[in-house]
């Protein structure tokens, strides 16, 4: 089977500190994979490299057979690799609905004018409904709670009908209700839309519940791989 995402020999150092060395991993289409590791193990750096925010010192990343090592964040999103941020940076001046529209606009180019405020149908409304943000769609992003911000991150990620979701600690510090909803969302995306995902978390039970395979990262190396 052809791998959806494969990374080979990824290494990255910042100054004198070697953060990642010899990382090799692959994700099959539709496969739910977890990434576990303590703080400082290099999780976020790896995520940044895989999503296109950072260039590795050595190594290659391939997606759907094509090499994407040097491809930037936005180009990867358009290819179908969507990532969420652990600490979201919401748009200070846009509403929730507008934030989702931005992602839709670039990807589908749908002509969806400002007058859509009165409408209750549409791709943006659809996404907002799925992530439970429909009632808050006119609220400025800056006023959202942490849980809602994570939902918005999810909605944004889903907007491109991703083949691969890279989720950086999306469940950390959430209320039980938010966690439950987002878990269901992730399962649905994986099951119904065939989206593979790489879930970064330091919460073992969650990883076991959601993922079929877990990679363990320690001090910049993958030390263990467990298939459930």
């Amino acid at each position, binding site marked *: 089977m052809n791998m959806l995402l494969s990374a080979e020999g990824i290494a990255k150092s910042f100054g004198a500190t070697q953060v990642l060395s010899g990382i090799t991993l692959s994700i099959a289409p539709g496969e739910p994979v977890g990434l576990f590791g303590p703080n400082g193990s290099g999780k976020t750096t790896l995520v940044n490299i895989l999503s296109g925010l950072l260039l590795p010192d050595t190594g290659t990343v391939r997606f759907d057979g094509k090499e994407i090592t040097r491809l930037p*964040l*936005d180009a990867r999103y358009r290819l179908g690799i*969507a990532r969420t*941020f652990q600490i979201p940076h919401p748009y200070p001046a846009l509403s929730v609905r507008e934030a989702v529209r931005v992602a839709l606009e670039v990807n589908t180019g749908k002509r969806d004018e400002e007058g859509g405020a009165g409408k209750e149908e549409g791709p943006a409304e659809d996404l907002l409904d799925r992530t*439970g943000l429909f009632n808050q769609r006119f609220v400025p992003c800056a006023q959202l709670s942490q849980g809602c911000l994570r939902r918005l991150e999810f909605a944004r990620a889903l907007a491109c009908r991703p083949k691969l979701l890279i989720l950086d600690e999306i469940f950390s510090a959430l209320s039980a209700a938010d966690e439950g*909803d987002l878990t269901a969302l992730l399962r649905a995306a994986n099951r119904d839309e065939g989206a593979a995902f790489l879930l970064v978390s330091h919460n073992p039970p969650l990883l076991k519940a959601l993922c079929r395979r877990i990679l363990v990262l320690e001090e910049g190396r993958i030390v263990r791989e467990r298939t459930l």
Partner: protein
Amino acid sequence: MAAAPYRGGWLAAGIGLLLLFPLSSPDAFFLDVFTTGFLLAAFAASWDVVGGVSGQITLGHALPFGVAAYACALLTSLAGWPLPLALAAAVLLAAAVGAGIGGLSAPLAGPFVALLTLALGEIAHEAAVGNTFFSGPGGYAWGGEGGIPVALPWEDASPFSSYYAALAFLCIASFGMLRFSRSGAGLILRAVAGSPITAQASGVPIARFKRLAFTVGSAFAGAAGACFAVHVGRATATDLSLELSFQAATFAAVGGRGTIVGPVVAALVLHVLFQGLSLPPSARVLLYALTLLVTLRFFPGGVVGTVRDLALRIGGNGKEGPRSPRRRNRNRTGEGTP
């Protein structure tokens, strides 16, 4: 945009007043003040497209303005082009200049964009001041501080027709810029301005859109500049000056960045006020600088922003939409105050 309906009313009233103003037989001087005011207001709105909507602080917006003015002048006077063709070429040239500026400034962060645009504008200004262009059969040299005349197809435009022409231009240009700001592209630009990283993670090619912002903003600035040169009759080095770039930023800051309408109103009010009082040029620049400083310090959102904040505080918090009739998620999600 909950404010849109009632603001439309104010706008209509304002335009109505401006349409009626010349009928009160004012001095030709005041008609001229308003005419240049209209053109400057369009210039201010074009700054807002770049600096307000898209968040790219440009301190060199006089560059496309002046380039178009000079292009218009040179093409009509030196190359003998008919005016409409020269105008079109001038606007295209300004847009191209904008694309260039946008390309250069795209990788830079905020204050450095300001620095780069300032430097580019000053280079153009020095080039215009220092260069003399030789006229055709006239024999004397143009250029330098005196500028280059525009060859006009009419003898002497009446102040009334100039006034209405400029007002029409302002309305059309502002309408165009407003539509752009409310379009999908405008939304993306506002996203890039607000949080570039989130926009990138949403698939937005940042550099391309920054270039777009500059191109569109410069095109409108060029249109205003070319019209300005036609109205004044010449293109002069002050059309490229730092003071003019600064005025654009001031109008936008005072009026409310990102609103398009705010800068237009601010430009009209400030220009008519300062110019109408017949203050000497240095006093005017000084007053502009003071106004800007006071606005930045005490009214960061500009007049429009402050009014909006007050209105929100009086009228309650942001709108919440109607409930979804086909709720697939349970109702309790997404409720409650943050």
